[in-house]
């Protein structure tokens, strides 16, 4: 144990990182923690296995090459993504701040020369990058299988699917982080996250169908209500990106194509962006206002 150097100065120099430097420090730590966590490994392995399985099944059904391979796989993966990816992102987000609070580590972090905004954004970025890596791994292995068996024609559709899935995951992560900020306990946050997942994946579709029948909603109203769900916005984005007609979605899809045309993809992108920025902004505001550590 070495001697402590005498210090008689009134106060030390200000030793803290710039705003973005602090965010980067937290993001890096969060990313490393995520890589070594069980949830990350479990979801990554599960997603990769499912994605590769769907790829093989798509290929075996077609027996052809090129675009058909990637195109059919994209369509096949769509439903899998809509089930698994929101769950991954919501669970990751809900455990973030609530987990730190429950373990008592949040107080210690906030007692360092950092702001609450840095902590929140750092955790968000770290988890976002970890999720993106997890998804890219799954899609990457799946793409390699497809390229090996069916060539690389139509791969741009698959790349776009990967990008849109990453966008969906970070919007779901925003919602998860908001739930985490507002919850005191990880268990409660995870429970709310699962409830939100259930609503977005199942209940909203059923509710929309029931509402359409009960209230005799017009097609534009059904479209407006449907597109508010980030999962539906994601689904339509993927279908539009595949150069497929939204007619597969029935009258609502036909209405969307005819009414909005080329602007539709931007509109859907805006919905996903709004689902990313708004929950994160509310989470930041709530985190700054709350006293709990």
């Amino acid at each position, binding site marked *: *144990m*070495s*001697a*402590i*150097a*005498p*210090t*008689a*100065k*009134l*106060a*030390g*120099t*200000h*030793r*803290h*990182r710039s705003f973005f*430097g*602090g965010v980067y*420090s937290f993001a890096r*730590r969060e990313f490393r*923690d995520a890589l*070594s966590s069980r949830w990350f490994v479990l979801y990554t392995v599960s997603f990769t296995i499912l994605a590769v399985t769907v790829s093989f099944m798509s290929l075996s059904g077609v027996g052809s090459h090129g675009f058909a391979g990637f195109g059919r796989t994209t369509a096949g993966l769509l439903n899998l993504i809509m089930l698994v990816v929101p769950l991954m992102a919501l669970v990751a987000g809900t455990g973030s701040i609530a987990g730190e609070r429950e*373990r*008592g*580590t949040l*107080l*210690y972090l*906030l*007692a*360092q*020369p*950092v*702001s609450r905004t840095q902590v929140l954004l750092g955790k968000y970025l770290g988890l976002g990058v970890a999720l993106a890596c997890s998804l890219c791994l799954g899609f990457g292995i799946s793409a390699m299988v497809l390229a090996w068996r069916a060539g690389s024609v139509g791969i741009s559709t698959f790349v776009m699917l990967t990008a849109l899935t990453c966008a969906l995951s970070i919007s779901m992560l925003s919602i998860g982080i908001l739930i985490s900020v507002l919850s005191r306990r990880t268990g409660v946050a995870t429970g709310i996250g699962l409830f939100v997942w259930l609503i977005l994946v199942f209940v909203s579709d059923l509710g929309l169908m029931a509402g359409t029948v009960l209230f005799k909603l017009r097609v534009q109203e059904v479209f407006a209500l449907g597109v508010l769900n980030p999962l539906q916005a994601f689904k339509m984005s993927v279908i539009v990106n595949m150069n497929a007609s939204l007619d597969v979605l029935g009258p609502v899809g036909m209405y969307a194509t005819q009414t909005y045309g080329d602007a539709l993809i931007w509109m859907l992108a805006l919905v996903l962006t709004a689902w990313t920025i708004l929950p994160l902004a509310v989470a930041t505001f709530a985190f700054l206002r709350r*006293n709990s*550590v």
Partner: protein
Amino acid sequence: MIIAEHVTKSFGRTTAVDDISFELQPGCALALWGSNGAGKTTLIRCLLGVIRFQGRASIGGVDVKRRGRQARSLAGYVPQELAFHDDARLDAAILFFASLRRMDKHAAKTALDTVGLTGHERKRVRDLSGGMKQRLALAIALLSDPAIIVLDEPTSNLDAAGRGEVSETLARLKQCGKTLLFASHRPDEVIALADRILVMDQGKAIQDTTPSEMWPNESGVQMIRLHLTMASESDAAKVLRDAGHAVHLNGHGLCVAVSRDRKAAPIHALSRADIEVRDMELIEGISSPEASP
């Protein structure tokens, strides 16, 4: 220096810190003394700007409300028990906190050396003993060599050996001219380290005194624990305080600091107030400051 002006913090209808003001000059050590629930921890959280509060507080002349990040960069913080990811290795943990203070690996190494943790870098946080965890917290607090160290009952969860390790380091820090603000309910720690004592009760500062005033014959002070019925503990604490005893409640009885030759005095005081003492036990003696390292 640390200045608190009318610091008040309420949680709903409960006032945890009630209009507390004090000034702590550079190089001085101030002990916050009081029972569990007296408001010591909340006051420390306010002073660090971790939670919102009414009134004003500054560290090294920097307002903690307006420039919390800068203010916290001037002080190191040691919690009651280091709360950090248990899976993290010691070197990774300290490098993360070093990055938040823009300090390099060399500073981290020096801080570990200062607290005698060199050679333990590859251990995981969960594998450290209580005393080693607290020394790690001290190393993190000392990373940027701040002139001010804020400690929240740093030895309360440690065994005698762990307390000795931490107390020794704190004594050396004080000798080196660091300004110490610490919460404690251990008379030996307060006698050894503090220049002043702020006695707190139910959120209020009820006395600003010195160790020699509080324990005139400090080398002959003995801690005793009185076991009473739960209902009478708070009344008993008041009676004993009125009789001039230093008292704290910790959920395991009423701890009272008494002169070695007058150990029965608190029992007599309680008897006069018709409060029954079920049992008593001697805790441990208090070493004089001269005997402390």
